[in-house]
């Protein structure tokens, strides 16, 4: 895990979190593990950035939270995409694809 890559990731953390929660509600640790999984272990998000982001997105109303039993029967706070979060996910995905297309074209042409 190079440091630069995590820095790069910071701007796209919101997108990754939204993507991770698109399938099913997860608690904080679950979100971290899911991101590691969907990026093939390339990105590991520090909890110091993850939790503030979760709380911020909750404040914005993109996420909804509820307390329920976890896989090993402990109480945990689960985050789920709210409708506005789903809309946000679609918007960010579209933006991201745009950036990738432009960047790929730019980098490939050189």
């Amino acid at each position, binding site marked *: 895990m190079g440091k630069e890559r995590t820095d790069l990731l910071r701007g796209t953390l919101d997108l990754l979190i939204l993507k991770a929660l698109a399938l099913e509600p997860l*608690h*904080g*640790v679950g979100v971290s593990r899911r991101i590691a999984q969907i990026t093939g272990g390339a990105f590991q998000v*520090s*909890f*110091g*950035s993850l*939790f*503030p982001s979760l*709380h*911020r997105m909750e*404040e914005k*109303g993109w996420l909804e939270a509820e*307390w329920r039993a*976890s896989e*090993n029967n*402990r*109480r*945990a*706070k689960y985050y789920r995409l709210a409708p506005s979060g789903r809309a946000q996910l679609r918007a960010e995905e579209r933006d991201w694809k745009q950036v990738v297309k432009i960047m790929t074209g730019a980098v490939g042409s050189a």
Partner: protein
Amino acid sequence: MPGRIGSFFRSLLRKGAVEQALDDELQSAVELLTQEKMKEGLSHPEARRQALIELGGVEQVKEEVRAIRPGMFLETFAQDLRYTFRELRKRPTFALTAILSLALGIAATSAVFSVVYAVLVDPFPYPGSDRIMELSMRDSAGKDRYAGLNGPQMQQLRQTKSIESIAGMDQWNLTTTDGDLPEDVRAGYLSPDDPNHWGTPALMGRWLIPSDAPYGKDPQPIVVIGYKFWQRYYFGDPGVVGRTLQLVHKPYQIVGVMPPRFKWGDTDIYLPLHVTADPSIYFGASIKLRPGVTVAQANADIQPYLEQFAKEAHAHYPEKFRSNLRSITELYAKPLGPTLYLLLGAVASLLLIGCANVSILLLARSAERQQEFAVRSAVGAERLRIVRQLLTESLTIAFAGTILGVLLAWRSLALIIAWLPENSFPSESVIKMNWPVLLFSVGLAFATAVLFGLSPAIQLSRPDIARLMQGSGRRVMGSANTKRTHKAMVAAQVALTLLLLSAASAAGKGFLRLVKADLGYDPHATMSVPIPIHENTYGTWKGRSEYFEQIRAAIASMPEVIDAGISTNATPPENGWDTRFELFGSASGQQPEARVNFISPEYLTVLHIPLAQGRLFDHTETMRGAPLALINQTMARQYWPNGNAIGQQVKIAVLKDEPPYSPAASGSDGWLQIVGVVSDVRDDGLRNPIKPAIYVPYTIKMRMFTQILVRTRVPPLSILRDIRARLVRLDREQQVMQVRDLEAWITGLQEYSQQRFIATLFGVFSVLALVLAAVGLYSVVSYGVATRTNEFGIRMALGANSSDVFRMALTSTAVNVGAGLVAGIILSIVFDKLSTRWVMESSRNPLILAGVTLILIAAAALACFLPARRAVRVDPMVALRHE
């Protein structure tokens, strides 16, 4: 964004719940991670440790989450505040000293500046009051002579282009004749030609208008009453306009009531002035310049007119003179100026000392707390957070100091007003709390607290954590910077305190001199009863001299009265009128000046003034207006050093007959024979040398006024009502003006009350300064000892004895105090010129300087000795184990 605002309040109101939830969430995350690790085969403790490492510290994550929350600021603020209160409670002395230091400075500065503002910046309620002038003529000797104007002269001067308006003025003591006892009423007669002269509308009804007294015609019987008279005589009756006020049996219709601040001439009521074309009747004149005209321009405009007037009526004018206009502000408000500025300087020093104290305390304390901050930053406190914490503490102190300061300012302002010398400032000025300056001193207090609360905080909040954590706080030396600041502050405090102390003792010494002044007469159990008479009464010489004698005899015959004498103008200690006289046999044209007093022979016995030589004039001589005179010893020494004054003759030209206002005995302006020399009495105040004095029988020339000097067996003022009743039996319109006993004549002297005022305030301020400076020193030495406990322990373990340690604890401070003392002495000498002018006593006096230096050294020694003793008591073993 209602949702966001909602969550803001949610997070504020349910702060506890939100915190709890965050705590739960992170705890559960730790457990989840721990279980993950345990599945990988780690033991529980090890798994938990790894989990915490991966999470990156529960507290740090919490801080990060809190940082993105709305309402976060207030939340941490409340937290900081709670912490602050806990801290301050833990160290109450620190908190109290800092708060008191600020409060005293704020209170003193705002109270004194409020007085300065009311008296010097905004003394009069009249719009354009800086353009309202009094006219005098300055003669070649630099003396000012008041220039009255007659009717035609006023008309002429009004044509001058620099003059906007002229108001003629006169004053009489009238009496009410619609009550049971006649009451004295001070009446101001004003020419109403230009009602805008004062620019103040009436509170009720109207002010005087030109048709009240058309030029050359008899004025209308109307009166405008002042606010105080309205309150006193009519108890503030709102229906008073339109009613009739009877003055000396003549009815006047009340047409208006003036607002409280309108007190022109300090009179009770205002009547239209009867200005006639008669050139022999002179009035006082108030001149208002046009806007934009300078005083020099106006003087130049008026000068030719005055020279013309001087040609027409030679006797009224000096030989050579310059027109000298002075604004009422300059005349009535400025005299108190130097005193007030001096005080302002004193309280500003006090404010500075207070602020220096707070900064010393804050610096010392943050140094003490270095370790605490190191620990806090190690467990995850951000630098900004620590700064904010320190700021909260400083601001809390500043805030508490401000509240206390404002309360104190209010109290002390009331005290200062009560103490202000009477008649030393215009009665129109209203002294109230001055908000701008209150805000200024509060601002200064806050700035000090923030500046000195933060400057160490910024360097402190990123200390070398590892080093500090390992070491004990006591081993931490204060930074070189902090120490330098301390040194400068201590020296500055000591210097300012010394300056204040020496000014205070100079002022105190000056006041003592006044108290101990040898009066030459006995002021105890004696009062002066001033009695005015009315226009068109007792117009002949015989009628008036007999009436005055009847009054004197009526009072003297009362059982409570020991004796009573007449003293037209001779109530000491500032008595007699400066008058030119001529010595028989000296070159004509030589006209020296002496104070002429009009008395009856009982005057000298009432005051216990002994006769030094010759004899007094007796009762029959007095009643026939015999051309005799007594002189005081000063005069006898000055003109007849060989002791041959008796039998000599003097002539006083102004004693000529001027009926009906001032009838004189025949031959009054001829040669008067000196029959006796009386011993010296203070006649020019308590401070100035005694002036040559001439005493003549009061019957030589009388005014519309007399005074009876009464010595009593009982407290003098207690028989006042009886006296008034007796006078009414002689003349049913006879009133009495305000009566004071002779002690009040002394304490009422401006030089006396002003000196007492300065001495008291300076005394109070310098004691406060001394206390504050001592506290400052105490904290500096305490801080020094606290930071060096360890070092002292080692030194003692190595064989240093307690006196060595004691010396070490004191040396650096002693140097600073010494520097401060030297600076203070130099300051005192530099300010000596100011202090001799304003405090009337030299502060360069070596005795004073030595005295206050000793006081300061004693206070400093005490302040340093107490904490230094702590250094000596250090047990080497305890100090070393501190590691």
